[in-house]
């Protein structure tokens, strides 16, 4: 499984992103591309030392500044479903990429699936865990 496929599947899900400068961003993934550039919504930014916080409605983060992404556990199961589905129609996928129009519509539909899954699965609980987990990482240097 490719890291970027997992990330694509995580669209619509909450996630934690740590940048190389140590800042962390908690938000819902709206979109991502092959460079790992990401667009988050409803974001909370935490400073490197974990003592200042900002909320922002959305933000764009350049892929090469990312250290790691923490995604909800259930997302990995959804990737497998989606790869199976696309296995059945590989020629269509291959062709579609050539046309700009297809690119767009494919992105929309997969996003729709991700959204539905989040609500059904009650992803909220997982999010809470993820958020509080971000804090110790800021402290770990002191321990």
């Amino acid at each position: 499984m490719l890291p970027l496929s997992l990330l694509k599947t995580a669209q619509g899900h909450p996630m934690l992103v740590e940048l190389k400068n140590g800042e962390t961003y908690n938000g819902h993934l709206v979109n991502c591309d092959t460079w790992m550039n990401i667009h988050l919504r409803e974001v909370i930014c935490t400073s490197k030392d974990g003592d200042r916080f900002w909320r922002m409605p959305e933000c764009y983060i350049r892929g090469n500044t990312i250290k790691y992404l923490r995604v909800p556990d259930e997302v990995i199961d959804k990737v497998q479903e989606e790869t199976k589905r696309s296995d059945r129609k590989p020629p269509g996928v291959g062709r579609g990429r050539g046309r700009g129009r297809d690119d767009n519509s494919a992105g929309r539909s997969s996003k729709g699936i991700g959204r539905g899954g989040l609500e059904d699965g009650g992803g909220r609980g997982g999010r809470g865990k993820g958020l509080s987990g971000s804090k110790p990482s800021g402290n770990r240097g002191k321990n």
Partner: protein
Amino acid sequence: MSGRKETVLDLAKFVDKGVQVKLTGGRQVTGTLKGYDQLLNLVLDEAVEFLRDPDDPLKTTDQTRRLGLIVCRGTAVMLVSPTDGTDEIANPFVQPDGA
């Protein structure tokens, strides 16, 4: 690899609005987005840089410096967000360890 629609974020909706930009190296500026290109080069008007603590360059202070009309080079742009709705807040996370 296609030239069009490769950017994840449509900057068009931020034109003539306030944006906050973080740059590699730690500089942080806000300004009114006047223009941009697909390489994420940005034109900001009435740009203001947030100066950093000389002892700890990771921290931004409330001191600012007016830069006026500037171009941010795309390769150095780390993060873009709208200033509208962006606020510093108290710790929103429940702290298990009380630290």
